[in-house]
């Protein structure tokens, strides 16, 4: 009952406030329409000047810069400087940069050299070189005229390909070129007719036996030249 009376009271209040609400709504609708027209005109200008439809607000820009700075602070990453390998075989090479603290220690056989040359693929795909492979000096790569394999190539030598005989038949070739030179349909050979003595059948007669029994035609060259 109390809720009903509350709803009744609200009903009276809303009836009184409804005209003001309608006026406010109409004002905002008109403001929105004017803003739409204004934005439409601006968007034409933005289109021809190559800007975004809604340019970044100064507060948003400040927020973005702040977030980028925070991310850079949390995840410091060395900036690789790509260097083109003139040898043509090893792809792009670059020299990893190290902090100054790394150079305080003298390089010993136990400790790896501070400057290490790595392929760009290892950096991009975060592939770590194998530990047993000695790093290549950047200077040696630049000075050697002959093409030098990169670290990646040394770590991962190309597997020796097995020699495949020429007469190897690939079922994929048959599928792709069913009537190629190698895949011409073979005509069925006619079966040789076997002449056998009368009274014998295929099961009891063999053409090889013919020579032993001196029956039929026996051709040999034993007496060649004696006649």
């Amino acid at each position, binding site marked *: 009952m109390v809720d009903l009376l509350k*709803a*009744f009271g609200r*009903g*009276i209040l809303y009836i009184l406030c*409804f005209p003001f609400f309608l006026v406010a*709504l109409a004002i*905002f609708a008109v403001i*929105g329409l004017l803003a739409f027209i204004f934005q439409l005109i601006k968007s034409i200008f933005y289109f021809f000047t190559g800007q975004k439809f809604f340019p970044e607000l100064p507060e948003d820009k400040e*927020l973005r810069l*702040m977030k980028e700075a925070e991310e850079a602070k949390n995840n410091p990453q060395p900036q690789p400087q790509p260097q083109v390998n003139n040898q043509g075989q090893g792809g792009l090479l670059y020299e990893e940069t190290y902090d100054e603290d790394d150079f305080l220690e003298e390089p010993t056989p136990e400790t790896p050299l501070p400057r290490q040359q790595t392929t760009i693929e290892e950096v991009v795909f975060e592939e770590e070189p194998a530990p047993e492979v000695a790093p290549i000096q950047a200077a040696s790569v630049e000075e050697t005229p002959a093409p030098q394999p990169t670290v990646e190539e040394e770590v991962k030598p190309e597997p020796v390909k097995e020699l495949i005989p020429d007469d190897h038949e690939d079922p994929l070739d048959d599928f792709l070129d069913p009537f190629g030179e190698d895949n011409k349909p073979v005509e069925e050979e006619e079966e040789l007719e076997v002449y056998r003595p009368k009274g014998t059948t295929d099961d009891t007669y063999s053409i090889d036996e013919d020579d032993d029994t001196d029956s039929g035609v026996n051709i040999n060259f034993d007496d060649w030249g004696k006649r």
Partner: protein
Amino acid sequence: MNFNLLIKLTENDKRVIIALLFAIILLFVIIGLLGSLIVRTMRWQGKKCDTLVSDVVTNHIVKTPHQLRKYAAKKNIRHFLKQAWIPIIIILVGVGTLLIRNAITKDWSYDLLNYNNGTKNEGGTGFGTLLWVWDFKDPDSYTKIWGLTLLAKWPPLVNEPHFSVDAIWCYVYIVCMVVGGTWYFIAAQAYLARTIRAIKLSKKVFEKSLDNFDQNTPPQQPQQPNNPVQPM
């Protein structure tokens, strides 16, 4: 004393008055419930403002209520434009349809609610062809009670819903206007709700309260859990 103002009510009059009272109460209750629904909807729509401005506020980029209101106004109008461009296009399509129809027929005195061409349930060039139409001008449907002209009976039906090919322009126009207009006003209501929310936030976020502050109370020292004080 003069009791001329007293009205003698019959039992039937009392019943009518009680029924009328209940009807009015019910009407206000329904209006109150509808109003509560609108208020809740606007509160929910206004929550979007929090999403739009929260990053900037939580990172302390805006530092004054004025800055917050200004920034929220920009974000709100942009969000409104993103919400309102579809209904505006729908409305423009409707208006364009009507203009094309008028240009083709060269009839600029077009009655949008025309329901027939003088024949019942046939023809018609307006949206009224899809509606029930009663003849409220029929004088036989009215009567006079205590000097007031009141509707005595349901007026005669002059049109039943029927489809008319001639009115197809008007169908498109009315449908586009109703759908686009409703959509647009909902977007405008959301814009109004976000603006109200932004004003509330600008007051609330930067509010400083001294309700629980007592200057005579010394500030509490933070207790260090690693070095507890040993009793002597």
